[in-house]
């Protein structure tokens, strides 16, 4: 049986450096598909979909809200041709009812332990409209290594430099942050993978550089320390979301190859300033993530915040506009205050204002978002700052003998497309 698994494309934010990282959720899902199924993976951001190819069954894996309309359009094309389409993934769960209108089947929950039944149902022509497993998340121990063999690897290079591989060491989150839907998606319990399973998966990854995509590693100190200890021998370099700032954790993280971490910057406090310094003291870079448009932010607050970012020596900063994703508190709050004016999911990309902010007009917030990017990267562009961060890691890789030279055969391509060289 030929199963084509598609990751739909989406409109990238203007003016920002675009890096296409290999999608993670789709290949984690693919690892749960029975062996007798021949799986082909298409990342539509980098490859065209050939609708008339010979396939038996189509899966659409959706991560982002801004991807859903494209996912639905792809499904419509296949269904016109008589192919059955099943949807899964984070934004399928966030938009399940709408997605059902474009699907033969919708899978809700985590895939481990359920795919044999679904493929059997497909073979018998008895596919169910909904497979609802929101309520019975699988034991974390059965989560196995992702199917990285499905990637068309050469597409994930920029001028010969390989992009990071994505990897997860846990699921769920015990926090319930204002703009985040993770508690709805993955349960409100932190579910760390057993360290031996993490090690087993790390062993399969032929890439020195990783993005550990867990929502937050800072949820269980002992497990976090055990994780970092187990990662040390692999000599990989990695970025991640928040890690704890306890000295013993930071020390192990640095030994395990922590390259840079994301740190939410929500105010101009000494707490943030000291935290950034602490990371830097251990040789760990910091990318600030700054959410604009919260109800406690005035125009002056946003400007002060941007000035503050320049003072605390962040290595990178990423600005986003609050996007009220379904099933978040942000969404319910704004909905009941009747403040959401744009219902077009394509625009829920965290770069576009879709609601009326409390202290300014939507237009002004949009301008401040642009001002934030322009001001932070005024003296040094995003690419230049990224290059500086890359240089740090290259020197560490050279020290421990893990540096891989850029691939010459791909030095004139970027994500599968030829790079146009500027002629002076």
């Amino acid at each position, binding site marked *: 049986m030929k199963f084509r698994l598609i990751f739909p494309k989406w409109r990238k934010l203007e003016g920002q450096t675009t890096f296409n990282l290999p999608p993670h959720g789709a290949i984690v899902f693919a690892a749960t598909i029975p062996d007798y199924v021949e799986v082909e993976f298409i990342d539509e951001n980098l490859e065209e979909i050939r609708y008339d190819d010979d396939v038996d069954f189509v899966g659409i894996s959706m991560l982002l809200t801004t991807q859903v309309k494209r996912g639905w359009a792809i499904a419509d094309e296949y269904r016109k041709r008589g192919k059955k389409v099943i949807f899964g993934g984070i934004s399928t769960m966030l938009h399940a009812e709408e997605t059902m209108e474009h699907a033969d089947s919708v899978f*809700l929950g985590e895939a481990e332990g359920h795919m044999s039944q679904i493929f059997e149902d497909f073979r018998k022509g008895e596919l169910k409209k909904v497979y609802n497993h929101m*309520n019975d998340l699988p034991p974390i121990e059965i989560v196995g290594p992702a199917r990285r063999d499905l990637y068309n690897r050469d597409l994930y290079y920029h001028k010969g430099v390989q992009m990071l591989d994505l990897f997860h060491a846990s699921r769920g989150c015990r926090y*319930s942050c204002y703009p985040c839907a993770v508690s709805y998606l993955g349960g409100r319990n932190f579910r760390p993978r057993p360290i031996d399973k993490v090690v087993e998966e790390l062993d399969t990854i032929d890439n020195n550089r990783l993005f550990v995509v867990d929502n937050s590693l800072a949820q269980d100190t002992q497990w976090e320390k055990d994780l970092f200890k187990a990662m040390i021998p692999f000599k990989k370099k990695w970025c991640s979301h928040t890690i704890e700032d306890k000295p013993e954790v930071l020390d192990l993280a640095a030994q395990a190859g922590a390259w840079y971490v994301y740190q939410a910057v929500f105010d101009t406090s000494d707490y943030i300033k000291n935290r950034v310094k602490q990371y830097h003291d251990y040789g760990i870079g910091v990318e600030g993530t700054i959410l604009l448009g919260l109800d406690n932010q005035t125009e002056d607050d946003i400007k002060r915040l941007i000035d503050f970012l320049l003072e605390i020596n962040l290595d990178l900063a990423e600005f986003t506009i609050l996007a009220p994703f379904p*099933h978040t508190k942000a969404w319910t709050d704004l*909905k*009941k205050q009747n403040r959401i004016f744009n219902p077009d999911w394509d625009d829920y990309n965290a770069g576009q204002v879709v609601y009326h902010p409390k202290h300014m007009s939507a237009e002004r917030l949009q301008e401040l978002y642009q001002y934030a990017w322009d001001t932070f990267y005024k003296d040094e562009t995003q690419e230049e700052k990224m290059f500086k961060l890359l240089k740090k890691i290259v020197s560490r890789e050279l020290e421990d003998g893990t540096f891989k030279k850029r691939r010459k055969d791909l030095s004139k391509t970027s994500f599968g497309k030829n790079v146009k060289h500027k002629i002076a």
Partner: protein
Amino acid sequence: MKMSTDVNLYQDQLYDFKGLWDVPSICGLKIERKENKIIIIVTDLFEENPGTSITEWNTKLAKELCDKFEINYESLVFIEHTPNKETKLSFNRESFFQVKFDIINDKFDNPQWIEMTKEEVDKLITE
């Protein structure tokens, strides 16, 4: 989770319900029967609720509560209560919204939220 200490003024019991996609969910509940109206206050329990929020499920929840506690739809005053989470964020402060529904063929639909002050809610339940 830290919530304001006077949360129990608006909560006499915990109420379990099946939320979106049958996920087990929980909220605080107070039912105040007055002469010509019955006030239902449902309280958001944030992290203590493993499932669907009261706001997302209000049409189903309001109907379920009316049916279970034999409340005439016409006498219903349905209030969503979000307790103070005691964070630094001003929008995590306590709030009350009365929710009005269109009720057609025994189905609650089209929720419309009207913000209320704490004083207005107190007056409503004590008068």
